[in-house]
């Protein structure tokens, strides 16, 4: 069976419901490598484990049943937290999407959970009637409905898998801190690479467009223009991109305002000032002042846009809020960007 052929399966457990694969709780080199690749944005859609029932340690009929999604990163986080424990792990088929996102979309849901409980014949495997579901799966699970349909009571575990041993040791009681979703510096930082990869594609397109425009409208021949201004264009867009996707997440609590587009815009202004420093030091004529203003607008607009995109990765933004923010911010970003580009062209003429 495919389920047993996976690299992290280190043995089998004989149980009343047949053999169950036993998985390692120590992550191997290849698991860490996979995590790294996924964090960098490669193969995120295909990083899965087979759904079904697994065991860690030497579980018996009284061992807890822990539920998770079949995104390998979620699964790895869970088993790595279970060193030295005996437990059953029930993996739901979420198409390789993590617990939180799958719960929001309904794939990690009441129906899927009840179906997997039945398919794995949990009722014959364990004597108790409890399922430990990660708290972040709650947007997809109705605990009272699961109880009705499967006979198993849902106990919501901590937000972080890492806190499971303490949760279990306390007799399945969570401390208030275990219930809170935080968004600390390190948690924000790991999200940056993926944001960068996604944003990079857009920026490349925009850079090509701008380089083309400067080539067409500049004073000399096409390629001379591109060579003359292309570097500036790339550097300008690059600073907007970095301000939005790196600076904004890192400085998030420090940046003013609540809207991500505002935070991104401010980060963009900061980046623009650094980017424009050489401009000010050798400011000459009307043209360069215009160009400086143009870049201020463009970089802030780009950064504001990518800052706004970070709402997708953040852990505290609401749909209503994002909609409201976008209604106001997107026209402003577009206007700032377009004004900036027109100014830039004008500056070229004046020079």
């Amino acid at each position, binding site marked *: 069976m495919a389920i047993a052929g996976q690299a992290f399966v280190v043995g089998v457990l004989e149980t009343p419901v047949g053999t169950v694969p036993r998985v390692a709780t120590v992550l191997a080199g290849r698991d860490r490598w996979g995590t790294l690749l996924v964090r960098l944005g490669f193969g995120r859609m295909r990083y899965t484990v087979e759904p079904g029932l697994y065991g860690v340690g030497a579980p018996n009929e009284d061992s807890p049943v822990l539920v998770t999604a079949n995104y390998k990163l979620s699964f790895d986080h869970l088993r790595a937290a279970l060193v030295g424990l005996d437990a059953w792990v029930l993996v739901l088929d979420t198409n390789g999407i993590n617990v939180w996102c799958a719960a929001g979309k309904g794939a990690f849901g009441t129906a899927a959970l009840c179906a997997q409980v039945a398919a794995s014949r949990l009722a014959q495997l364990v004597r108790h009637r409890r399922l430990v579901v990660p708290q*972040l799966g709650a947007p997809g699970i109705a*605990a009272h409905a699961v109880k009705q349909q499967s006979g198993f009571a849902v106990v919501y575990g901590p937000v972080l898998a890492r806190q499971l041993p303490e949760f279990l040791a306390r007799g399945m009681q969570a401390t208030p801190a275990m219930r809170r979703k935080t968004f600390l510096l390190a948690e924000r930082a790991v999200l940056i690479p993926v944001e960068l990869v996604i944003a990079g594609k857009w920026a490349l397109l925009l850079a090509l467009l701008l380089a083309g425009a400067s080539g067409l409208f500049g004073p000399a021949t096409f390629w001379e223009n591109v060579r003359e201004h292309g570097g500036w264009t790339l550097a300008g867009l690059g600073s907007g991109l970095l301000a939005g996707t790196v600076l904004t997440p890192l400085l998030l609590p420090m940046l003013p305002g*609540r809207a991500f587009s505002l935070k991104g815009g401010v980060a963009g202004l900061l980046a623009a000032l650094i980017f424009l420093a050489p401009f000010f030091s050798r400011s000459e004529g009307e043209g360069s002042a215009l160009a400086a203003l143009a870049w201020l607008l463009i970089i802030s607009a780009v950064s504001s846009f990518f800052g706004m995109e970070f709402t997708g990765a953040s852990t505290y*933004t609401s749909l209503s*809020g994002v909609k409201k923010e976008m209604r106001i911010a997107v026209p402003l970003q577009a206007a700032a960007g377009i004004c900036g580009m027109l100014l830039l062209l004008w500056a070229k003429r004046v020079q």
Partner: protein
Amino acid sequence: MMKRLLYLKGVATLRLEQETCIGCGMCLTVCPQEVFVMAHGKKVRISEQDACMECGACMLNCPVGALWVQSGVGCAQAVFNTMLVTIQLKAGNEQKQPKP
């Protein structure tokens, strides 16, 4: 402790019907944002409406249906995609309209 991050003011659609609440505490358990507090051990009340991220966990897990929220994925990309789909649908419908 660090001041917690709050998103936009006064936009979260969360509603609590306090008469219906039986004080089971389920919403306190599932909410990742500590939006609720138990008042006098009998009913919950919303203590921080602006912290609600509209995940829908409380609504789904309230056994008596005392909570309501317009839930969805709060991210700019999702909103863009929804807008695109809506525009495409509208365009498709217009094409299907019989020309007078």
